[in-house]
C-alpha cells in the first residue's frame, strides 16, 4: 500500500516535472512491468490534462475593491489607535468580571455542592417556631441557630444547635432524635425538652419523657434525664451533672420576643375553636354539648366566655353567657356540657361564639 502511495507520488511528480533522473527511470521500469500500471499512468495523465484549466473571475471590480480596502484600512487604523488607549481599562474590566464570576461560582458551589447543610434557621431578635420534616416541633430562642444535613433523613434525626432551643419530638422508636451542641449530644426517642448551649455551659431540661445526655464523643459520660430533671455539662470541668429542675420557667423564653405568642395573646378568638350540639331533654331544657379546641402553639387559655344566642325565631332571641373556667392547653380540646333555662320556649336555634378568654400567665413548662 505504501509502495502504491509512493508510486502515485512518483507519477504526479513526473507529470509536474518534479522527478529527477533516477525517479524517472524507476517510473519507466514500473510502467514496463504491467498493463495495469500503464493504465494507472494513463488515468493520471488524463486527470492531469483535464485539471489545468483555471476558473476566471470575470468581474474582479478592482476599483470598487480598492475603495473598500482603503476604507477598511482606515477603520482598522482608527480601531487600533482607540484600542491602544482603551486597552488598560478594558483589561481591568475583564479582571473585575473574572473576579465576580469566581466569587459567584464559589458561592454557588458552597450553597449547592456543599453536602453539609440542608436546612438552616437562624433567629435574630425574635423567637421562631417551626416544624422539622419528621413533624417534630422546634422553638428557637433569639440569636440561635439550628441546622441539619441530609443525614437527618437517615439513621438518626440529627440536628445541630447553637444557642437555645425547645424540642417537642415526634416519637419514632427506630430513629433516635439527636441534638448536637458544641460539647454535648442529647438523644431521645420522643419527648419534650429544652437545650441551652452557652459559652461553657450546656443545660438540658426535660419537660416530659426520657432523654439521654452526654458529652459529644464520650458515650461513658451519658446520663439519663427524665421528667422535671435537668443536666448540665461544663466544658471547663468536663463533667455532666444531673439534678431536679429548679428553674420551673426554663422554657418560658419561648413566650418572649415571640411574635406568634404575641398574636396568640392578642387575637384570642382566632385560636379558640368551638363546636357544639344541642337537644331538648325530657323536661324541655336545652342540653348543649360543646367542645373548645385551642390551636395556639404556646398559650394556655382559661375563663373562656361563650356567648350563647338562642330563641324561637330570629326576632325573638335571648342571650346568655357561659364561662368555662378550666384551662385549655395548647393543642388540647375541652369538652363541656351546659343547659339552658328555656323550658317554656320552643327553641329552634342555638348559636355559640367565643366572646373572650384569659391567658394563663404563670410559666408552665408543660
Amino acid at each position, binding site marked *: 500500500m505504501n509502495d*502504491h502511495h*509512493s508510486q502515485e507520488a512518483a507519477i504526479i511528480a513526473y507529470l509536474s516535472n518534479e522527478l529527477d533522473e533516477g525517479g524517472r527511470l524507476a517510473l519507466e521500469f514500473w510502467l514496463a512491468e504491467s498493463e495495469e500500471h500503464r493504465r494507472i499512468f494513463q488515468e493520471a495523465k*488524463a486527470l492531469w490534462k483535464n485539471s489545468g484549466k483555471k*476558473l476566471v473571475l470575470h468581474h474582479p471590480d478592482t476599483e470598487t475593491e480598492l475603495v473598500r480596502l*482603503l476604507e477598511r484600512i482606515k477603520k482598522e487604523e482608527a480601531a487600533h489607535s482607540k484600542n491602544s488607549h482603551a486597552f488598560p481599562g478594558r483589561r481591568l474590566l475583564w479582571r473585575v468580571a473574572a473576579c465576580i464570576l469566581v466569587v459567584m461560582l464559589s458561592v454557588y458551589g458552597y450553597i449547592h455542592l456543599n453536602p453539609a447543610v440542608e436546612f438552616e434557621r437562624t433567629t435574630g431578635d425574635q423567637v421562631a417556631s417551626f416544624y422539622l420534616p419528621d413533624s417534630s416541633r422546634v422553638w428557637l430562642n433569639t440569636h440561635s441557630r439550628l441546622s441539619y444535613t441530609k443525614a437527618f433523613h437517615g439513621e438518626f434525626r440529627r440536628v445541630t444547635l447553637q444557642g437555645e432551643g425547645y424540642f417537642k419530638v415526634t416519637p419514632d422508636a427506630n430513629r433516635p432524635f439527636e441534638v448536637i451542641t458544641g460539647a454535648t449530644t442529647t438523644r431521645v426517642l420522643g419527648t419534650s425538652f429544652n437545650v441551652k448551649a452557652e459559652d461553657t455551659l450546656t443545660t438540658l431540661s426535660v419537660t416530659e419523657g426520657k432523654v439521654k445526655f452526654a458529652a459529644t464523643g464520650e458515650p461513658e459520660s451519658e446520663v439519663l434525664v427524665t421528667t422535671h430533671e435537668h443536666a448540665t455539662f461544663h466544658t471547663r470541668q468536663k463533667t455532666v451533672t444531673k439534678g431536679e429542675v429548679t428553674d420551673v420557667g426554663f422554657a418560658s423564653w419561648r413566650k418572649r420576643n415571640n411574635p406568634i405568642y404575641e398574636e396568640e395573646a392578642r387575637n384570642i378568638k382566632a385560636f379558640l375553636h368551638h363546636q357544639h350540639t344541642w337537644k331538648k331533654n325530657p323536661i324541655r331544657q336545652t342540653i348543649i354539648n360543646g367542645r373548645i379546641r385551642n390551636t395556639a402553639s404556646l398559650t394556655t387559655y382559661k375563663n373562656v366566655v361563650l356567648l350563647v344566642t338562642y330563641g324561637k325565631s330570629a326576632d325573638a332571641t335571648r342571650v346568655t353567657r357561659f364561662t368555662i373556667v378550666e384551662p385549655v392547653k395548647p393543642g388540647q380540646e375541652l369538652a363541656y356540657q351546659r343547659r339552658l333555662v328555656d323550658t317554656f320556649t320552643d327553641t329552634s336555634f342555638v348559636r355559640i361564639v367565643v366572646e373572650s378568654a384569659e391567658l394563663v400567665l404563670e410559666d408552665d413548662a408543660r
Partner: protein
Amino acid sequence: MQDLSEKNFQDLFRQHHRELCNMAYNLVNDPDAAKDIVQEVFAKLWAGRDHLDLDGPIKHYLFKATAHTAYNHLRFQKKILRLHDHVTDDTLHAHPGTDRVEFTELEHHVRQAIDNLPPQCKTIYMLNRQEGMKYQEIADVLRLSPKTVENQMGIALEKLRVALKPFITLKSFAALALVGWVCYYLLSL
C-alpha cells in the same frame, strides 16, 4: 519597492488585483471569498509596511500571501463550503460570459473532484498544477516540508483517480478497445 507610499500601494493593488483574485478564486471557488482574501492580503501588507522585509519582488510576496490566506480560508471554511458543493455547477454554467473558460464535461467532473479534496491536498495540487509552483515553493508558502507536498500530491492523484474512475476508465477502455481492434485488424491481414 521597499518604500511603500500610499500611491505606490494603490498602484500595486490595481496592478495585481485581477490575477490574485483569480488565483484565490481558483482555490476557494467563491468569488466573494476570493475578493475578501485579496483584501486581507493587502490590508496586512499595509499594516506591516514599516516592517516589510522582502527577499524578492513584491509580486512573489503577494502570490505567496494570497495562496496562504486562501489555504487558511479553505481549512477553516471547509464545513461551510461543503454545504455549497453545487457552487461549482453555478459558477461553471450560470454566467456564460464572453471570455468564459469553457469546460469539457470531463474537466468539469475533474474540477468537482478537486473541490472535494481535503483543503491541504487541494491547495497543494492547485498550486502545482494551475499556478505552476514547484514543490519547494509550495512547501515554503504553506510552511510544510517538501516531502509532505510530494506525498500530498500522490494522495491527491489517488483520490482523484478513485473519484473519477467512471469517467476516465471509460475513456481508456475505449482507447484499449480501439488498440485491440487495430491489432486484431493488422493480425488478420
